[in-house]
């Protein structure tokens, strides 16, 4: 599908980040790797689904991409521009083009500002001086996400979770960004509302030609919204490929475990989870495959860093089982 290979809007290579604990006089006492050697491309108008369990580093990756956190190493290019090298002033103007949608619709809206004020903020900061123009744009974007513009003067606590998530989307959308990073945007919502918000996101993506990184833990949601999937485990991408292929034919044992664990709506589907192997037990750390402690197919070689094997064009898996299948 990407035979012409135009420049991807977002291109990430070797992205790494560790968090450090410091003692009271500022000396580093512990390194906690959060993201290690992550790389992917997102083509214009497309969505990459970043999926994994809590603590796998997917949210950190999203924030590194937007440079809300400074990375330790790696390369993030947005439309060819090296984000990590951008000067503060340049970064500020870049922010208009790349927006974040939050998971928690409650704590991501400042409770002391009206929703009109919240959405207007981005316009003020990015130099829309004319008050009337700002108000028109806020009203238009509110209408677009399905909130009545008359509610502009109300405070966030007067809205339900689903409505707040719409307000959060409006805040991101009012700047007419080109890239959206959506961090678990529907996981705090009820099923019926989740469908509304997912559909809204799909509509506006189409309408504005947005490129998106969609972070979620729910495989079915990710499949629904993204053309390509990257599965993360302990800070690394263990499998990446076109959505249909990954879902239909998971190569990495972890991807398979994730898919097996998703309950389906078919009653009484006979399914057993893999043997209870909690990842607090067993071996961890060291240089090996991060998944080896939980993997029932592990081999001696898994103690070393697994290579990222490109099984076929666009399909990457970090597992020794598939090494040598390339070409």
């Amino acid at each position, binding site marked *: 599908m990407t035979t012409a290979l135009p420049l991807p809007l977002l291109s990430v290579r070797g992205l790494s980040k560790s968090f450090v604990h410091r003692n009271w006089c500022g000396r580093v006492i512990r390194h906690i790797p959060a993201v290690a050697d992550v790389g992917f491309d997102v083509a214009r108008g497309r969505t990459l689904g970043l999926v994994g369990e809590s603590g796998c580093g997917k949210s950190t990756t999203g924030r590194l991409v937007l440079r809300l956190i400074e990375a330790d190493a790696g390369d993030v290019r947005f439309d060819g521009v090296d984000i990590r090298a951008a000067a503060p002033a340049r970064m*500020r103007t870049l922010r208009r083009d790349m927006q974040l949608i939050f998971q928690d619709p409650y704590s991501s809206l400042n409770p002391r500002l009206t929703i009109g004020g919240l959405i207007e903020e*981005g316009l003020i*900061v990015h130099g829309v001086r004319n008050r009337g123009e700002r108000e028109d744009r806020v009203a238009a974007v509110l209408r677009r996400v399905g909130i009545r513009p008359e509610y502009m003067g*109300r*405070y966030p*606590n*007067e*809205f339900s979770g689903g409505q707040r998530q719409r307000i959060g989307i409006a805040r991101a959308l009012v700047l007419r960004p080109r890239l959206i990073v959506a961090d678990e945007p529907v996981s705090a919502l009820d099923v019926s509302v989740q469908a509304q918000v997912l559909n809204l996101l799909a509509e506006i993506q189409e309408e504005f030609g947005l490129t998106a990184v969609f972070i979620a833990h729910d495989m079915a949601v990710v499949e629904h919204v993204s053309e390509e999937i990257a599965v993360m485990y302990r800070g690394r991408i263990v499998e990446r490929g076109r959505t249909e292929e990954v879902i239909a034919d998971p190569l990495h044992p972890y991807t398979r475990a994730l898919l097996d664990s998703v309950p389906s709506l078919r009653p009484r589907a006979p399914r057993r989870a893999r043997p209870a192997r909690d990842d607090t037990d067993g071996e961890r750390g060291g240089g090996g495959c991060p998944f080896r402690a939980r993997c029932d197919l592990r081999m001696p070689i898994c103690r070393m860093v697994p290579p990222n094997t490109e099984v076929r064009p666009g399909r990457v898996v970090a597992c020794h089982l598939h090494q040598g299948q390339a070409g």
Partner: protein
Amino acid sequence: MNDIPSFTAAAHVVAGANAAEGTARRNGLAIFWRQFRRSQLALPGGLLVLAFVLVACFAPLIATHDPLKNDLARTLMPPGAENWFGTDELGRDVLSRVVYGARLSLSEGLVAVLLALAAGVPIGVVAGYVGGRTDMIIMRLIDVLMAFPGVLLAIAIISVLGPSLFNVILAVALYTIPIFARLARGATLSVKEEPYIEACRALGVPHLRTLWRHVLPNIAAPILVIAALRVAISILTASSLSFLGLGAQPPSPEWGAMLASGRNYILIAPHLVIFPGLAIVLLVFGLNLFQDGLRIALDPKTTDLR
């Protein structure tokens, strides 16, 4: 997906749906007022404080005598028709002195706290928001100041500056600064973690604007609550220092100083101790009641702390 929290969220939606267009701010005040009334003692407390404020404002109209005028013919008179609260060892009218003392005590509390707020809050907010080395240095300095137990720091400061009412206010303000700084820092640190602050970063909002529009309004409530408490404590501290002879000097009608001199006549004229003492207790009690209501109204997290 628990029923109970979402249920309270539903209640919020109700509140919003009932509010008329454009009255959200008034709605906020109404919620504040309802919460304030929940502490049944807050209103009486506020009225008590208001009474003292009025007394202080209109002291010349209320006082029956000149608070500084000696009348050696009428010393140590018990309360009676001429001097409702009696007279002191120099024949001065105790009621009038107590009335004028309200001015001193209220300004002790208010001025000290305002000074401490003005210095402490910016220090704490900057330390919390900037973090890193700046934060570390500021916090070490604050640790040192906080290592002096309670009034002792004020006493040490006065021992240097010399006893006077002004120096007492300054000393109390100085030792209140680290309290506000630490409070503001803690509140800033927790607000800083809120996603809406990250949203500011994501939008490219400049730091000063973020501090002013997003951080400050959200840490104001706990600071205000503690400020009200500190007014009460500052009044107690300042009058204690005056009692020790380190603050207001005779013949100033400061309540603590009045107690200090009245103390020598406690067996023959207890009213010299009782009336100024009661004045302090009532004023501070009123402030504490008011503060309690303020806390319930402003700090949603501690709704049951009373």
